[in-house]
C-alpha cells in the first residue's frame, strides 16, 4: 500500500518540476488528491493497528489473569489501573455509521440562587435606563439560561456554530437563537470571516460566552451600554498580521436591531464596528492582550427603562472601548496556580432625542463612561478567589431632563464584588458571590450561589 502513495508523490514531483506557474492551481489539486490518498492509507493502517492492539491487549489480559491465578497467595493489588475490558474497544470506526457526521453537541447548565436586601424589581440606574437583557440576576432559586451548542465543519472551507438558549420568560419556556454563524476557514492571507448572528468582537468580555465569565453577572458598563451583551446579525471580517506580536484588525457590519441600536436602521445595516487587538508574552509566566474597539449604531425607537412603559431613543449611539488583560501562571503551568487581571473602559456618546412616556421627543446628548477592573486568583487547583470593582460616570443631558430617570446621578454608580469558586473539573463550577451595590436607587447588599455545568462536547476557550 506504500507503493501507490510513493508513485503518486513521484508523479507529482516530476509533474510539478516541469510545470509553468500558471498551472499552480493544478498542483494544488494534485496535492489535495495525494493528501486524500494519504489519509485513506493512514486510516487503513490505523485500522490494522487497532486490530493488532486488540490482539495484543487480549494477550496481556490473558497473561495477567494467568499470573493472578498463579500467584493467588501473593497480595497483588487489584487491577484497578490494569487493562480493562472496555479499553479493548477502539475509537469510532470510519464511515459506515450515519451518525459519524453529527455535529458536536454540548449543553451548558447555569442556575443561580440569589438574595437581595432591596427588591430587585425596583432596580434601576439613575441616568442609565437599562435596555436589552440587562438587569439584576433573578431573585431566589432560578434556572437561568440553558445553552444548547451544536458545531461542526460544514466542509473543507466552512465551519458552523449554533447556540440555542432555553429560558423561562414569564413562566413560558422559550428557545432563542443566541448564536448561529458560519465561519470561512480557508480564506487566504490571514483573513477570516464570520456571518450570521454572533456576539460582536467589541471589547473583551462581549464575545465570550456567559459560562466563561469570572463573575455571575456582567460588569456595569455591559449592563448600561450593551444591554448585557451585544449580539446582532451581520458579517465580521478579521485580519491577523503575520508577525510575532499578535495584531488582529477586524470590522463588523451589523443589522442594528439590538440594544444599543434598534430598529434595523439604514435598511437593515444600522451599525458597524471596528476593532484592533494586540497581544504577546512577557515571559514564560505571563501574557497580555490589549485592544481598542468602536461601535457606531443608529437607533430607531430604542426602548429602555420600564419594559411596559419604555423610554424611546432615536439617534446615533457610539461606543468606544479599551480592554486590557494580563494572565500569569508560574512557568506557564496554568493548572496549578494562576492569576487573571482584566480591565475595560467604555465611552458612550448618545446623540439624538428621547421620548419619555406620554411626552414628545426631547433633544438629548450625553457623553457617559463606564469601567471595571477585576482580578481572579487560583492559589491551588480547583479553587479560585476574585474581586471586581465596576462603575459608571454620568453626564447631564441638560435641564430638560431634570427630575427624570435620564438626569445625571447624584453620585457615580459603583459596585464592589467578591467571589470564590470551586471547579471539580473543567466541566463543573460552583460559585459563591457577594456584591455591595451602590448603583441602584438605594445601596444594596446581594449574595448568591451559581452553578455552571457542561455536558457533551465543549469547545476550546479563547484567551
Amino acid at each position, binding site marked *: 500500500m506504500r507503493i501507490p502513495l510513493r508513485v503518486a508523490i513521484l508523479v507529482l514531483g516530476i509533474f510539478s518540476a516541469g510545470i509553468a506557474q500558471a498551472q499552480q492551481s493544478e498542483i494544488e489539486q494534485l496535492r489535495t488528491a495525494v493528501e486524500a490518498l494519504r*489519509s485513506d492509507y*493512514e486510516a487503513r493502517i490505523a485500522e490494522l493497528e487497532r486490530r493488532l492492539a486488540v490482539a495484543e491487549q487480549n494477550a496481556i489480559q490473558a497473561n495477567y489473569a494467568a499470573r493472578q491465578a498463579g500467584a493467588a497467595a501473593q497480595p497483588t493489588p487489584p487491577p484497578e489501573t490494569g487493562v480493562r475490558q472496555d479499553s479493548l474497544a*477502539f*475509537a469510532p470506526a470510519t464511515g459506515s455509521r450515519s451518525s459519524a457526521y453529527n455535529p458536536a453537541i454540548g449543553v451548558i447548565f447555569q442556575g443561580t440562587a440569589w438574595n437581595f436586601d432591596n427588591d430587585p424589581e425596583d432596580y434601576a440606574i439613575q441616568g442609565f435606563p437599562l435596555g436589552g437583557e440587562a438587569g439584576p440576576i433573578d431573585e431566589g432559586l432560578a434556572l437561568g439560561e440553558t445553552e444548547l451548542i451544536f458545531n461542526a465543519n460544514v466542509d473543507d472551507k466552512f465551519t458552523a456554530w449554533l447556540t440555542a438558549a432555553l429560558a423561562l420568560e414569564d413562566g413560558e419556556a422559550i428557545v432563542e437563537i443566541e448564536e448561529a454563524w458560519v465561519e470561512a476557514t480557508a480564506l487566504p492571507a*490571514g483573513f477570516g470571516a464570520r456571518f450570521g448572528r454572533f456576539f460582536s468582537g467589541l471589547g473583551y468580555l462581549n464575545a465570550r460566552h456567559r459560562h466563561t465569565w469570572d463573575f455571575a453577572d456582567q460588569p456595569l458598563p455591559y449592563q448600561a451600554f450593551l444591554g448585557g451583551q451585544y449580539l446582532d446579525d451581520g458579517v465580521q471580517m478579521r*485580519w491577523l498580521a*503575520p508577525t510575532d506580536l499578535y495584531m488582529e484588525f477586524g470590522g463588523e457590519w451589523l443589522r442594528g436591531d439590538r440594544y444599543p441600536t434598534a430598529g434595523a436602521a439604514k435598511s437593515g445595516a444600522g451599525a458597524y464596528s471596528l476593532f484592533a487587538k494586540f*497581544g504577546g508574552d512577557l515571559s514564560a509566566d505571563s501574557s497580555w492582550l490589549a485592544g481598542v474597539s468602536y461601535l457606531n449604531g443608529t437607533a430607531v425607537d430604542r426602548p429602555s427603562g420600564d419594559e411596559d412603559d419604555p423610554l424611546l431613543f432615536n439617534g446615533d449611539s457610539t461606543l468606544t472601548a479599551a480592554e486590557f488583560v494580563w494572565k500569569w501562571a508560574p512557568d506557564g503551568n496554568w493548572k496549578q496556580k494562576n492569576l487573571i487581571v482584566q480591565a475595560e473602559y467604555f465611552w458612550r456618546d448618545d446623540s439624538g432625542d428621547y421620548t419619555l412616556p406620554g411626552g414628545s421627543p426631547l433633544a438629548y446628548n450625553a457623553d457617559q463612561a463606564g469601567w471595571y477592573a477585576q482580578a481572579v486568583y487560583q492559589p491551588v487547583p480547583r479553587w479560585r478567589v476574585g474581586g471586581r470593582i465596576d462603575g459608571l460616570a454620568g453626564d447631564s443631558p441638560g435641564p430638560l431632563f431634570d427630575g427624570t430617570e435620564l438626569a445625571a446621578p447624584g453620585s457615580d454608580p459603583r459596585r464592589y464584588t467578591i467571589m470564590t469558586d470551586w471547579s471539580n473539573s473543567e466541566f463543573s463550577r460552583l460559585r459563591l458571590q457577594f456584591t455591595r451595590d451602590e448603583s441602584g436607587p438605594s445601596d444594596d447588599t446581594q449574595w448568591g450561589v451559581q452553578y455552571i455545568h457542561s455536558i457533551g462536547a465543549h*469547545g*476550546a476557550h479563547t484567551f
Partner: protein
Amino acid sequence: MATAMIRMMLVLLLAVSPHMASAKLNVFACEPEWAALATEIGQSLVETYSATTALQDPHYIQARPSLIAKVRQADLVICSGAELEIGWLPALLQKANNRGVMPGQPGFMEASNHVLRLDATTSVDRAQGDIHPRGNPHIQTNPHNLTAVARALGGRLKDLDPDNAGAYEQGLAGFLERWEAAIAKWEARAAPLRGSRAITHHKSWVYLERWLGIEEAANLEAIPGLPPTATHLSRLTSEFKDGGADFIVRSPYQDSRASEWLSERIGVAAVVLPLTVGGTDKAQDLFSLFDDIIERLLEAQGHD
C-alpha cells in the same frame, strides 16, 4: 472609516509580506518533543517553535495571543493529537486564519495518528475523568513511536518544501541511524527495570512502561486529570506499604506533594521523570531525554 481601515490593513499587509517569504520552513509544535524532532530532521532548513514547555501540563494551556501569532505564520503544525490539546489548539486554529495548517491540510499533522495508541475506548463517561477516547496521547515516552513519527514527519517536510527534499531525506536517515543505535543502547541499559512496578501520578507513562516492561501498579490520581485525593492516597498507602511498588513517578509540572507524601509512607523513592525535552537539566534533546529517564529510574531502583 471602514474604507480607511481596509486601506490600512492592505498597507500593513504589504509592509509585512517579506516576513511571509522567509526562507525557512516554520514548524509550530504543540509540544517540545515534536519541535526537537523537526529540528533533528530539518536542521537549519526549519525554524521550530514549541507552544508548551516541559514544565507545563499540555492539557491546560491558555490559547495565548502569542501562540495564535505563531500559528498564523506556521507552514506546519505538529501536535501529539488524540485530543491532548483539545482545550486550546482548536481556539488557536480558529483565530489564526491560516488555511494551510487546518486539520486535513498537509500543514497539519497529529503525531499520534502514526503510532499504535494504547487504551483507546468507545465507552467514555466524564465520571471516569479526563479520558481520551482515541487513546493515550503521551506517545513520546516510547522511542519506537518517535521512529514512526520521524518517518511521517520527514515525508511531510518533503511535501511542504519539495525543493529541499533531498536534505530532509538525509536528515531523516541520519537521525534514524543514530536513533536506532541509541534505542539498542537504552534497551540494554534498562534491562534491570523489566518487571519493576511503578505508581504514576497521571497515566503519562504507559508507552514507556510497555517499552521497558514496567508494570503500572497504580495512579496517584484516583480519576484521570483530577488532583489526587486524600482518601485515594491513604488507600494506596495501605495497599503498597508492604511492597508491590518500586518507584513513584511524576512529571515536572505535577504537584510534588502527593508523590512525596506517599513516598514517605511506603518507603519507595519518588522520582521526577522528564516527560519531554527540557523537563530536567539533563534532558536537553531527544537523546538525553531517554538517557535521563532511564538513569533516573535505575537510580530510584538502586542500580547506579
